[in-house]
């Protein structure tokens, strides 16, 4: 999480879907991803934060692009971006 003094470890297999994961992240880091029920892909819009992840190739992708099962097998790190970088991503 950008701005946090330390990192956290999470087991992605605990969650069954993106909305669950995002809710857990919001609780863990006490921030808000966006309004709405997290079931739509456009919940990132209007939020200062964009959850991204680093996949096996080392690329940083926006969370939610690939099917959940593919995500949990390819995601190595999660990074909650905020600020300018996040705005750039959510505008896509």
């Amino acid at each position, binding site marked *: *999480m*950008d*701005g*946090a*003094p*330390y*990192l*956290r*470890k*999470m087991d992605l297999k605990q969650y069954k879907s993106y909305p669950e994961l995002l809710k857990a992240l919001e609780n863990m*880091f*006490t*921030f808000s991803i966006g309004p709405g029920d997290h079931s739509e892909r456009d919940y990132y819009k209007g939020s*200062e934060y964009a959850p991204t992840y680093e996949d096996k190739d080392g690329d940083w992708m926006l969370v939610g692009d690939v099917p959940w099962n593919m995500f949990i097998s390819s995601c190595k790190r999660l990074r909650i971006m*905020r*600020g300018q970088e996040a705005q750039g991503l959510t505008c896509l």
Partner: protein
Amino acid sequence: MNSFDSQRQDSLKRMRPWHGQAHHHHHQQQISSATFLSKIMIGSSPPPPPPPPPNPLGPSPRNPSFKLQPAGGGFTGSLQLDEDKDLVSAVVPPAVTVVLEGRSICHRINLHKHESYQSLARALRQMFVDEEADLSLDAGMAADDKGKDLDLSNAIPGYLVAYEDMENDLLLAGDLNWKDFVRVAKRIRILPAKLNSRKGRSGAQAISN
């Protein structure tokens, strides 16, 4: 200092250039002789880990891990390092340095001597909190008193317990199960908890500025 650490990690992955490394981590010297012995004693049964070396920073009588050690500090027999044939993963420092943010003198603790986060919390409490308390208070008694509801979050009031892992990330201790934690923790850092409050709210405030 960062480059130093990465060098150390690189050397862990490649070979064992323990000799001639002018680091202050004297426990590495212990490991070098340990791994040398393990090459000879292949096939021996997994034993207790080697005891930590004498504290290079001077005697620390209140450190619980040293109280439990025999005076000689020699190896008790075969070593735990031959559990893994892979030398890279076998190089786990038996004792990790514990740094309390702001203090110049650190402590050492042997994670293998503890079986849970609560046990570690107790040891950290003895190490840092009971130091300020009555010096004549027996550490064993203090552990019984405070061990009832002790966990990492309240082990040292006003501080939270984080650790550096093999990738040099700083993580909050407690997310992993105990065995995984022991395997990956390279160093423990006790941070002031006021950093914690900056994390949530002020992160958002910074955006709105």
